[in-house]
């Protein structure tokens, strides 16, 4: 698979950190508050909460591949390759091992 190519040089005034930091900060705090809430309500062992914790570990590691988003999406995905015999529960956002 081809590696991501570097972004083209963009507007001289464009700074992704200036534009995006507060938004990313806010979303990260939302995730932390969600995990606290799940803990308080005894839901920290739910497979979706566990999957989120696993994904968080992936983005906390140094990564120069430019593949953090893809890596998280893959970690939340069904890793199997054989078609299912019948439709199960609707997609919930994280893969649940049968």
């Amino acid at each position, binding site marked *: 698979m081809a590696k991501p190519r570097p972004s083209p040089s963009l507007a001289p005034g464009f700074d992704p950190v200036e534009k995006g930091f507060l938004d990313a900060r806010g979303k990260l705090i939302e995730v932390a508050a969600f995990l606290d809430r799940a803990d308080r309500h005894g839901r920290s062992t739910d497979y979706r909460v566990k999957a989120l914790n696993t994904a968080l570990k992936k983005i906390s590691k140094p990564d120069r591949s430019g593949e953090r988003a893809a890596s998280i*999406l893959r970690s939340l*995905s069904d890793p199997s390759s054989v078609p299912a015999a019948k439709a199960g529960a609707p997609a*919930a956002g994280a893969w649940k091992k049968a």
Partner: protein
Amino acid sequence: MRYIEPHAHMVSRTTDDYERMALAGCRAVCEPAFWAGFDRSSPEAFRDYFLQLTDYEPRRAAKHGLKHYSWICLNPKESEDAGFAREVLKIMPEFLDKPNVLGIGEIGLNKNTRTELAIFEKHLALAEKHNALVLVHTPHLEDKLKGTRLILDALRNFPKILPERVIIDHVEEHTVREVLARGHWAGITLYPISKCTAPRAADILETCGAERLWVNSACDWGVSDPLAPPKLGLELHARGHSWAAVDRVLFRNPREFLGQGGKFSVEE
């Protein structure tokens, strides 16, 4: 800014949305057949739905100066009942030759089952027979990666359907490169939560390039925004992309793909 909305479920939207889209620069809207949020009780209900797509919606869109095209199929969610699906497939040829029907879509997979896959392949056989363009829906969330790969493998069994006449929609960071590597077009759906936001879509365009990519709102009855494509245009321009580059993504690319079928036309 001008744009083509290549994937919107306008039967679920208000007339106000048509007006807002026209005001934002939309020149044409394309509507794939989809799951209505509930399962239909009979195959004949699809004949009514296809009439709505091919006759009623174009007239509603025309009131706001918008051209309206559609895609015909049985959606993957209702494909799980194979007998039901075969009855709907019998109805489809009545509509495929209409001048405002672009092709077969959005077909694909929902929960990646054997039956869904079999019905997907029947749709592909029909597309092959009618030399139709194909619009493919990839599954939601955790099912997307596996479903995308099953779809790509199934398409290989239909060599008469040229890869560049198939668009695989709802790609994200973990699927876009595999789709492009097979020679297909890829669609990025702009949803506030469950698919791709405008900043992420801009990142994909910057890292993958704009060749064989389109963007859409896929606005329907769920959380979605019919003005998502022009908002992506603003995001791209704010990053320093030229208006010509924005035009390529929002207008010229969908026109190029859709133009292959010989039915789609839009004013410059």
